[in-house]
């Protein structure tokens, strides 16, 4: 493989994985605190719409990016209220988020954009790392979006919080054994609320990373499965921030491979090629990863005073 192809692969890998990295970090923080958030997909969609719409009307992509995070956080708050305070079934509630998120995004899109299910393209996308001029030659493949860098920083920050801070220890304790954490004076509800809201925030940012950096607008297919794949990536990465990040990279790499191979001299049907990332994931799971080890209290609402 020539170095050009390698750089191209790397660039596409990073590009494709970015929205999923945000979503995966969102998923990991929620699940480790013990709240299943299957509504990531819906939260990404509402973020994707909010980001594109605010970016279009204000002309400022960063404002759109922040608003997308806030929109996701509102959904996170609703999910937290239902699953922490009301102790509702978290999976059911997440599925509801997946219905309401895209429903609301498309509804608002039709209201604000004259009945169209897609927004108009934003004038300013989120800038690239090395600006518009970029790098010379094929090195320019590494001129990634700023969101890619932010995703990496967020992931490193998450690792730091998880494993090097007291709060991270609290967070993991809450997900493993909330009653024990409670006896130590950790406010289980508060930790879970913060985590689920952050989860929505990150998912919203992931959505906007799609519609403000990769494509310049929101459309119904902008978020099609990335949220679910992020959830899969977290399980794949054994519920750790770095594992989730690497799983997203792997998935992005498989997608990049389909792009690069598709353009080459191979005569593989494009549909078969498109299956590659998913087949690869299943194969790797079978061969290397094996038994899933979820946080023990994942998905179980905590009742103060209960013993488990």
């Amino acid at each position, binding site marked *: 493989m020539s170095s050009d192809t390698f750089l191209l692969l790397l660039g596409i890998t990073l590009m494709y994985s970015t929205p999923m990295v945000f979503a995966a970090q969102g998923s990991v923080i929620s699940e480790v605190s013990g709240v299943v958030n299957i509504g990531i997909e819906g939260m990404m969609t509402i973020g994707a719409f909010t980001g594109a719409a605010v970016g279009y009307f204000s002309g400022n992509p960063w404002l759109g990016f922040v608003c997308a995070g806030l929109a996701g956080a509102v959904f996170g708050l609703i999910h937290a209220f239902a699953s922490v305070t009301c102790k509702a079934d978290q999976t059911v509630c997440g*599925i509801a988020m997946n*219905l309401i998120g895209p*429903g609301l995004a498309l*509804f608002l899109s039709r*209201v604000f954009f004259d*009945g169209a299910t897609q927004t108009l393209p934003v004038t300013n996308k989120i800038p690239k790392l090395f600006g518009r001029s970029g790098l010379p030659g094929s090195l320019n493949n590494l001129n990634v979006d700023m969101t890619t860098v932010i995703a990496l920083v967020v992931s490193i920050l998450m690792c730091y919080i998880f494993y090097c801070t007291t709060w991270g220890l609290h967070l993991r304790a809450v997900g493993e054994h909330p009653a024990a954490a409670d006896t130590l004076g950790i406010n289980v509800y508060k930790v879970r609320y913060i985590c689920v809201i952050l989860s929505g925030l990150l998912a919203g940012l992931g959505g906007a990373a799609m519609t403000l950096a990769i494509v310049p607008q929101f459309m119904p297919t902008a978020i*099609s499965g990335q949220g679910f794949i992020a959830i899969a990536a977290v399980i794949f990465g054994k519920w750790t921030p770095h594992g989730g990040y690497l799983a997203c990279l792997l998935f992005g790499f498989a997608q990049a491979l389909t792009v690069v191979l598709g353009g080459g001299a191979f005569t593989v049907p494009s549909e078969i090629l498109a299956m590659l990332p998913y087949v690869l994931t299943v194969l790797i799971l079978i061969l290397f990863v094996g*038994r899933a080890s979820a946080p023990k209290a994942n998905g179980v609402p905590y009742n103060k005073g209960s013993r488990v």
Partner: protein
Amino acid sequence: MKKILSNPFVLTVIAIILGFVVASIILLLAGYPPVESIRTLVESMLGRPKDISSVIIRSTPIIFTGLGVAFAIKTGLFNIGAEGQYVMGCVVATMVGSMLDFPKPVAVIMVLASAMLVSALYAGFVGFLKAKLGIHEVITSIMLNWIALYFSNWVCGLDFFHKHGTIGMYPVNPCTYTMVLPAWKRSEEGQAFLAENPILKETLGRTDVNIGFLAAVIAAILITYLLNSTRKGFELRAVGQNIHAARFAGINVNRSIVHAMMISGALCGLGAGFYITGQSPHTVATLSAFENVGFNGLSVAFIAFSSPIGCIFAGLLFGGLLYGGAGLQSKIGAPTEIINIVIGVIVFFCALSYLIPRFAERMEAARISKQRRKKMQDQPDVHP
């Protein structure tokens, strides 16, 4: 009071009412008349005999996927792969149905059986990986959903199956149709008969009335029987409720997981088979995104609180809302996506609904303790 409020049916009705309340608020904020919108929605769902017939037809595949998901939930599995299983069922039914030329009942049974078998194996694979290797069923299901989508598109493009000038495959042969009297209603005799019966003309004549709904009802009853009255059903539920206890009791847990997934997948496949054989265009087209029949099955199962019989009604509601939503957009101009919001809010409140009996309980307890306190105050202190 508490007894009434603990009834799942009552809870669902409350959730549905709240769903419409939230939707009205959103419609109002967006500048559409809420009351008129909801009236139009209901009218487009139930206004004419043709609409009722269409709603039933539209609901049929969703009831099947709902049944599949509900069955999996009862056995402790989350079958988010219903979508992929349904897609596989559709594509295989079309492949088999377009090649077959047999007498009617044989052809129909072969198509339905092949769709069921493939979907069951597809789901069974997920169950197998979970049982043998401990791989979470959600992650493999999500991957298999996408693989099914691309597989379907690949088959659509194959020379052997692709119908030129369309984006889909050759439709299935008429010998596999599961509509009610498809040939007769187009014949002269049939047309003459329908002309005299306006209601039948509108329903049977104008829509693809098929036996799928009937089959869904039978399937729901059979599944209920299987779960509640057979040894197998008991084993499957036992594994769902406490896997360790089930293993200790001597139940083959691994086999149960695989079987439960296979039955769940078979139901999704059967829905796909009835969709292909019973509704135009009787074929599969290239898909750019999921059609959500399987994902909607998840919502149906949740709204029905995983009761198989409940899935029939939840599926009808869901199909009705989807069908009526189109009418809402054409008549009022309100975006049809409001339907997804309504359904989402209904599912959301179904998740919260168990709070209602608890709330009633608390109210009752407060009332009783208040009465008791009053009694104590009224009575003079008898103790020295």
